[in-house]
């Protein structure tokens, strides 16, 4: 399936390739500033959230999200409006991977600290604390392989359809479905472990 976006595995660049018409020429789409502004306003939060869920700190996600939209701004005329979300998410995954690679040190802000040194298992009441819940969520996600994590996040948190995920990752639909099944099983297994653990400090 040609989608105009690259697979997450493509190395060395954070910029997915763009559609080419049957004539061999690059397809051009409207690149009005208004389109870009709308794109930023509508998609910044999902893009940022995706970057967070794949393991970036808040500060890293801030920088990475800006990079994603700089790429989008530069190539707006080449991005099919019907697939711009897939382009953004695909670019975000590239940028996120690069941020991981180039990270020289990980600054542990409050959220990161919660993720990395959870010292107690919270009960349901405590999960009303959203930060705590997100820390647990990230811990479960971090235990997954990247392939599964990305599909899980895109489906369960960002609410993309399976077809959209197949576009973003340039994967066959069957592979997406398979990864989602495995990811859900791992997630549910992790949740079950937490639920069985007493909510007292360890």
């Amino acid at each position, binding site marked *: 399936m040609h989608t105009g976006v690259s697979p997450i595995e493509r190395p060395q660049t954070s910029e997915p390739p763009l559609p080419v018409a049957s004539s061999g020429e690059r397809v051009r789409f409207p690149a009005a500033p208004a389109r870009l502004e709308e794109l930023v306003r509508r998609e910044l939060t999902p893009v940022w959230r995706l970057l967070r869920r794949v393991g970036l700190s808040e500060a890293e996600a801030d920088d990475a999200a*800006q990079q994603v939209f700089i790429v989008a701004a530069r190539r707006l005329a080449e991005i099919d409006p019907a697939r711009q979300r897939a382009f953004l998410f695909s670019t975000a995954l590239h940028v996120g991977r690069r941020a991981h690679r180039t990270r020289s040190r990980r600054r542990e802000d409050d959220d990161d600290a919660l993720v990395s040194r959870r010292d107690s298992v919270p009960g349901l009441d405590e999960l009303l604390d959203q930060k705590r819940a997100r820390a647990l969520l990230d811990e479960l996600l971090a235990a997954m392989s990247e392939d599964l994590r990305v599909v899980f996040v895109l489906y369960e948190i960002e609410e993309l359809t399976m077809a959209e995920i*197949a576009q973003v990752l340039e994967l066959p639909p069957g592979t997406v479905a398979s990864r989602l099944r495995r990811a859900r099983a791992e997630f549910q297994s992790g949740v079950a472990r937490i639920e069985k653990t007493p909510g007292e400090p360890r």
Partner: protein
Amino acid sequence: MTDPERLLDTDGGGLSAALLRAGRAEGPSDKLLADTLVAAGIGAAVVGAGAAATALGAGSGSALLKAGSTTSLTTLAIKWLGIGAVGGVVTVSAAVGVEKSMHSAPAPQVTAAAPAASIDTRSSPPKPAPGPARPEPEPVASAPITPPPSAPAGKPTAPSIAEETRAIDQARRELASGSAGAALATLDAYDRLPGPHRLQPEALLVRMDALAKSGNAAAARVVAKSLLDQSPNGPHAARARQVLGSGDQKE
């Protein structure tokens, strides 16, 4: 392909749902929207006294969009400009401008004298858009394009090296005199000149410094990263790393 029911829908009251709900609820700071608009090249009118920040605080980008609001931050900025509710407004644009000639050859050293035509940053309509508050308001500065005299109508031609040099020198002077907003406006005008720009890396360098000086460290870091991505061993790499390093220290 039939999509399965999402976990949040099948486990509404359970732990899985609580975790997923928390994940969905997270969002970036309000400031990031303004910074990203600027970084993406959408002009930014910086409203002092936190007016813009207040406007931004109304909600995230998606929230604004979902609300069907067409009262963009641009409009808000124009409003503030119009009523003069704040002491100073700076029209800045942090358009990274990486879309122009980032793959061009390294910029030559040019010392050509500037021709008569110049980039006028005083008379064009302002290009207001949201932006983060700056510590020191500056006068309004906007940047029209003075097309090259020899450019035939309807057929954009690249600016001459002299024209590019003049624009960047002007931005440097403005920055050196403490007017980061004016420098950014001049760079906006430069970016809007038609055709490929041979001095784009130099323009990015000045833009990076102007953004840093105007207090938009996040956007400055983004520009620095772009510079490094394009030319990790280029003449501006050290300065770009310096900006990135200072950001790290602040964090």
